[in-house]
């Protein structure tokens, strides 16, 4: 097969999966769609973690996803909790053998943590938070809190990319299943630089914020954590998730993983109901791609009304109960 050596380097993509407790993070499926649109095939997915059962179950589920041509599965203690130091060295090791042209991560906290470290090890740039693909080396990404969209062209031999989940549809199940292979573990998988100590995950029965179809979000005007509970009732009627502005989080009305905005989560549900949120640039950065935006605010000058499809000016404490009643009918 010596002739292969003189051929121009072929394209091939690796998507590094994010998963939690044996379940693939939905954002990984959005990244697989982005990978397919680049057209650098084959597209293969790396699933790694500390628990073999969890890795196997995630590997099996992604192997049946549309656009996936193969899966690498690596279970080893060093990859528990997906620490950046160990995972990036695993990906470097795999890249040395497979010579990927594109390495994609979902732009989750996992992807944002690992991708730049990997890129530095490969001496290449990261194209972060892409929202569309213009070709194998051309991507668009928001800058300045989404107030400008930059189109960039990468000059690097390997494109390390993080994918904004809300900008790409989730890849569906294909009915086929791609092959699952083991990938080699580096000689020293445990770098010993970082140790996981503990985790405090907020439990919720509601849909996950990042993928919910409906979001009810509250701001400072809710005035207290007790009042913030009003939003949960409304969200339950709509089978939606609850989100918050930074002001609500800083005031202690809810936990910070509910924060939507430039520094929190970016969401794009079918329906976004902003209650008592003024609409600062930083908040809008996280929700202005929602399909339908409703704003409820007593200040008719609030900037949120400039982007809302439907605005209602009034006291949220009388509007929320009335809305519950009207929606339950």
């Amino acid at each position, binding site marked *: 097969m010596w002739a292969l050596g003189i051929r121009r380097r072929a394209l091939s993509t690796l998507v590094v999966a994010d998963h*939690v407790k044996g379940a693939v993070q939905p954002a990984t499926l959005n990244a697989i769609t982005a990978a397919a649109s680049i057209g650098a095939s084959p597209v293969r997915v790396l699933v790694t973690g500390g628990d073999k059962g969890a890795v196997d179950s995630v590997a099996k589920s992604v192997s049946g996803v549309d656009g996936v041509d193969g899966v690498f599965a690596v279970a080893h203690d060093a990859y528990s*909790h997906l620490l*950046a*130091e160990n995972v990036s060295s695993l990906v470097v090791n795999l890249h040395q053998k497979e010579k990927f042209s594109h390495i994609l991560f979902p732009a*989750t*906290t*996992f992807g*944002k*943590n690992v991708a*730049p*470290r*990997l*890129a*530095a090890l490969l001496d290449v*740039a*990261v194209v*972060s938070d892409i929202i569309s693909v213009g070709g194998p080396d051309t991507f668009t990404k*928001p*800058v*300045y*809190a*989404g*107030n*400008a*969209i*930059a*189109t*960039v062209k990468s*000059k*690097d031999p390997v494109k390390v990319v993080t994918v904004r989940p809300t900008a790409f549809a989730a890849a569906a199940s294909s009915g086929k299943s791609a092959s699952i292979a083991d990938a080699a573990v580096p000689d020293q998988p445990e*770098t*010993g*630089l*970082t140790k996981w*100590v*503990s*985790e405090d*995950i*907020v439990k919720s029965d509601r849909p996950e914020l990042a993928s919910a179809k409906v979001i009810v979000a509250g701001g400072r005007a809710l005035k207290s954590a007790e009042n913030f509970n009003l939003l949960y009732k409304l969200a339950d009627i709509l089978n939606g998730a609850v989100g918050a502005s930074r002001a609500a989080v800083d005031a202690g009305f809810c936990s910070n*993983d509910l924060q939507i905005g430039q*520094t929190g*989560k970016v969401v794009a549900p079918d*329906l976004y109901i902003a209650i008592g949120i003024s609409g600062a*640039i*930083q908040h809008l950065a996280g929700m*202005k791609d929602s*399909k*339908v*935006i*409703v704003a409820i605010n007593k200040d*008719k000058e609030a900037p949120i*009304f400039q982007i809302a*499809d*439907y*605005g*209602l*000016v009034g006291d949220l404490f009388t509007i929320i109960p009335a*809305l519950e009643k*009207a*929606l339950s009918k």
Partner: protein
Amino acid sequence: MRVLVGVKRVVDFAVRVRIGADKMGVDLANVKMSMNPFCEIAVEEAVRLKEAKIASDVVAVSIGPKQCQETLRTALAMGADRAIHILSDLRTDRDLQPLAVAKLLANIVGKEKADLVILGKQSIDDDCNQTGQMLAGLLSWPQATFASKLTIADDKKNATVVREIDGGLQTISCVLPAVVTCDLRLNEPRYSSLPNIMKARKKPLETLAASDLGVDLEPRLQTVSVAPPPERKAGVIVESVDELVAKLKAVGAVP
């Protein structure tokens, strides 16, 4: 221990940016500039380590045009001991990119023998969220990103960091030296008092030319164009809850 803090001068967070006439970037002429909010948090954390007698020396570093010296003076007024300005005329929101910045910082970390580097998690202009991770990778140091709590062990050999992750919080422990990037909730940055601003004028500020540090500054990502985001069409103000629900039903937004 010596703590290095990276600070970036960016368009003030409250400014509504405009696309320049050449459609290649945001118009920076006559726009208010300030220290990146996440960098303020980094400086505050470093100064708190100094006040807790954990850090002995806090060095603020900024890369960019000569106006970055104002940003460094702000860091000095907050309590940093001295500053290093790496002079470069490349646009820091577009052409001087995280990989080059990380390499320049790695160079300074080596020269200064820093034990801890604290950076913001992202700058609010390029929104990259990369520099800290890249620096850690280049130095083969551990990284603790999106930190909302930082505790240095008494022997100064380890740090425990609470990180903000999707779904909640994660606590990790890393060996020092390390790179930490700050999330918004790490602390509340202080305002500098007038006497401290006056004192900051006398603190040492060293200037180096980026081009002298042996780092390839060539942007790896070439900007093809910069455009405004798609505009949403004007909405309507409804008069009552019933009207709102009727409209939402009409467009199928609620069942």
